[in-house]
């Protein structure tokens, strides 16, 4: 058994775990952030609608409502500190019937009760003026100026990188099999890489929160995966949509929405179907069809030929219907975060602050580290620069003059930088999330051979060792030739 004893172990490096790690890195603590995947943010964080919600959806008084509104307010500062793209562009809920208009009224009053500012009900005519491609059936809309869009992966790895730069230890490819108990007390975790002991263990494991709690005898809470299927349209479709549009919500979901992404694509989805398998990330013909049909109800002119990708996300839907954030009295040393489904992304920075407060109240000594740096700088993004900036960058490092992803204009310099960032991009998917490589029209067809070569060179390994997402996801299997080099 490793003798290292951590002050805090965080199980799960999604957006919630990453923000908690970052907040804890302000203090003199030894913190370990664990994840079973080969990169941070590989669970629900990587597959959601990427919306910073205003906060009118949740029931007033719920934790969802509280942390949504508080988290939303933090986004400008958090994204500025972490060098993450965020656009507070406002969001709309579109009504297409008389019943829907009543729903908008309910949402507006709920929003005001939750403390959402600036909500405005507008006419169907005004909504169509703001969104020329909108369905003729629109009867009105609720405008929420505080809503926005963000890159959820970027937010997650930026927070995690900032935490790592401030001394948090990160262990990827590390699967927790059970919580360690001494009497009633949780004293760490058992993993595929051995046991890790800690004073506090925080479960931020998304879909798997209930499974982990069960290993410590905590029954009752159940996480049901709720599947959401999405389509991504090429940036060429961007002119077909101006705004973030939700349909009127149903009891199970906010409905199939149509939204620009922070990178200029259009995202359609999600469906909402309860499934049993927590690993069931497959798309289905029926789900994709439902997504497309739903999206076309809002924007009938969307061109499905511009589809470049489909994917599935699993919401970690908890049995209580609200976020579960607690320190179970019967298991001292354990802090549980469960059921953090939408608006979890928006809520994540506020949840992290709250978790720190809970730990402090529970007796953890938090002593500020004067050397804590709250800011983090991402790798350069060549495609977003002015020509003068691009010129200066190439002058500094010629590798920024070589474009390896033509659709998204990503350069060799960016790939190299991502290989040497505080949380190195060890897999193709990790590189993709950090640089946008392979996310465009050709979906990696052009860049993949070049990336294999660059990653192999930077990590000094054979291309045979580079995987798409860790584990057995090798990209190439063997050399074509049977003679040694």
């Amino acid at each position, binding site marked *: 058994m490793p003798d290292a004893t951590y002050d805090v172990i965080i199980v799960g490096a999604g957006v919630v775990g990453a923000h908690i790690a970052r907040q804890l890195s302000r203090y003199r603590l030894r913190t370990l952030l664990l994840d079973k995947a080969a990169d941070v943010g590989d669970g629900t964080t990587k597959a959601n609608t990427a919306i910073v919600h205003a906060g009118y959806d949740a029931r007033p008084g719920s934790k969802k409502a509280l942390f949504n509104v508080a988290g939303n307010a933090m986004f400008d500062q958090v994204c500025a500190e972490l060098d993450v793209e965020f656009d507070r562009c406002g969001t709309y809920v579109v009504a297409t019937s008389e019943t829907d208009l009543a729903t908008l009224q309910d949402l507006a009053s709920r929003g005001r009760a939750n403390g959402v500012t600036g909500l405005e009900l507008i006419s169907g005519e005004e909504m169509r003026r703001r969104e020329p491609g909108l369905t003729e059936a629109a009867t009105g809309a609720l405008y929420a100026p505080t809503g926005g869009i963000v890159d959820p992966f970027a937010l997650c790895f930026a927070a995690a990188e900032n935490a790592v730069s401030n001394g948090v230890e990160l262990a990827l490819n590390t699967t927790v099999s059970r919580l360690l108990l001494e009497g009633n007390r949780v004293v760490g975790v058992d993993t595929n890489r051995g046991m890790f002991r800690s004073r506090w263990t925080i479960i931020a494991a998304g879909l798997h929160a209930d499974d982990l709690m069960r290993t410590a005898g905590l029954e009752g809470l159940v996480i049901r995966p709720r599947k959401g299927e999405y*389509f*991504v349209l090429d940036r*060429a479709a961007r002119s077909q949509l101006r705004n973030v549009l939700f349909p009127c919500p149903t009891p199970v979901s906010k409905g199939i929405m149509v939204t620009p992404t922070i990178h200029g694509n259009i995202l359609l989805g999600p469906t909402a179907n309860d499934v049993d398998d927590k*690993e069931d*990330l*497959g*798309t*289905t*013909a029926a*789900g*994709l069809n439902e997504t497309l049909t739903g999206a076309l109800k809002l924007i009938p002119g969307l061109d499905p*030929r511009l*589809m*470049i*990708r*489909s*994917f599935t996300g699993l919401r970690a839907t908890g049995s209580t219907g609200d976020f579960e954030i607690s320190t179970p009295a019967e298991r001292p040393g354990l802090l549980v975060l469960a059921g953090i489904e939408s608006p979890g992304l928006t809520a994540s920075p506020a949840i992290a602050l709250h978790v720190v407060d809970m730990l402090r109240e529970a007796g953890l000594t938090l002593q500020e580290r004067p050397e804590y740096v709250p800011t983090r700088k991402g790798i350069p993004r060549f495609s977003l620069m002015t*020509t003068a900036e*691009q*010129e200066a960058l*190439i*002058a500094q490092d*010629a*590798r920024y*003059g*070589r*474009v390896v992803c*033509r*659709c998204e*204009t990503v*350069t060799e310099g960016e790939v190299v930088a991502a290989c040497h960032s505080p949380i190195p991009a060890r897999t*193709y998917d990790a590189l993709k999330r950090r640089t946008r490589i392979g996310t465009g*029209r*050709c*979906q*990696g*067809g*052009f860049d*993949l*051979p070049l990336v*294999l*070569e660059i990653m192999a060179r930077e990590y000094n390994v054979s*291309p*045979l060792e580079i*995987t*798409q*997402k*860790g*584990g*057995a*996801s*090798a*990209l*190439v*299997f*063997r*050399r*074509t*030739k049977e003679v040694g080099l």
Partner: protein
Amino acid sequence: MKSISCDVLVVGSGPAGLAAALEARQTGAQEVLLLERNDELGGILQQCIHTGFGLREFGQDLSGPEYAWRWIDQVHDAGLQVLSETMVLSVDATRRVVATSKALGMIEILPRALVLAMGCRERPRGALAIPGTRPAGVYTAGTAQRLVNIDGYMPGNRFVILGSGDIGMIMARRLTLEGAEVAAVCEILPYLSGLRRNLVQCIRDYDIPLHLCTTVTEVRGQDRVTSVVVSGVDADRRPLPGTEREIPCDTLLLSVGLVPENELTRMAGASMDAVTGGPRVNEGYATDIPGIFAAGNVVHVYDLVDDVSQAARIAGRSAARYACSTQAPTGPTVRLVAGENVRAVVPQLVHPAALEQESIALHMRVRTPIEAPVNLDLRLGERTLLSRRFRYVRPAEMLTLTLPQRLAGELAGATELSVHVRT
């Protein structure tokens, strides 16, 4: 930023760019500059190590690299300027080109005429929305071709290939020769998408199972592909329930169509043809942006490289003439419209005045194959001006109809011509 001016700038040095650049020089343009994103010229030809190239251009059955090098040698002999490892980032309607180059950094190029020859790209999985998981091991055939032929890595051991396009069939053979197993080639249509000789020399010669009217309906596997589910399809290409069959494999290769690469063309503001995916061009392969021409697969996807070279010559010649201001077609144009069983016609516009100078080749594809003699008719209103007989027509094989100079008079004053395939 370094600024360069020249007579003719050619973007892309595949077969189209090489032919266009050389022809521009031979037509009289002095300063011809050829840009290539790779470190050597030739574009995709360098990874097409199979033969089948050059039968018309050189009267020989050459491999892709051989075909490329015949042109590259000519380009060097002609003393054309070449900038490799250079990627164009933007083009505007004034022909101002901004590029990034590993050697020169950011550069601005201001050519008198511009030829766009970026080629085409493959449709990826996302464009098909194949349901299932998202494991490693789904590649386009061209990506696999690059990995195998240039880099020397096998992307898998047991393959299913979706689509019977030429690259897919050629890769079926290539992977077999490198010791892999191709479990199946599936084609959703009732006929081949690629050339028939590839059916013989790439599929049948190696006893590779080919399934027509069949598509992949699910990808399975968590980390890496472990199998795909294939299903038969009905006449409307919808999967038939009950016909599903699981085929174990570690790799799914896609050969499901090529799309002209036209981001720069759109950026420049050229009018596009929604059917071909390329810009609308006239008989000189001029787009509707003055001084901007299009060559090869940027205009529409060809099936033979020899045809690419030939059409690109015309674009290079027109660009040189434009740059030297000696000749540019003027006057009214006639629109060419796809009629019965014709998918699209290139060029889309013809100047009758240009036809007085030389004949004009029209290229087109049929929508559905007919394995019986047919006529390809060119009509002005109800009147047939020209007819050519074909023993059969297949979507995979481009048809050419040449307008003879004698028709120039008939075209004067016309606004629209149509082409039809009839049995």
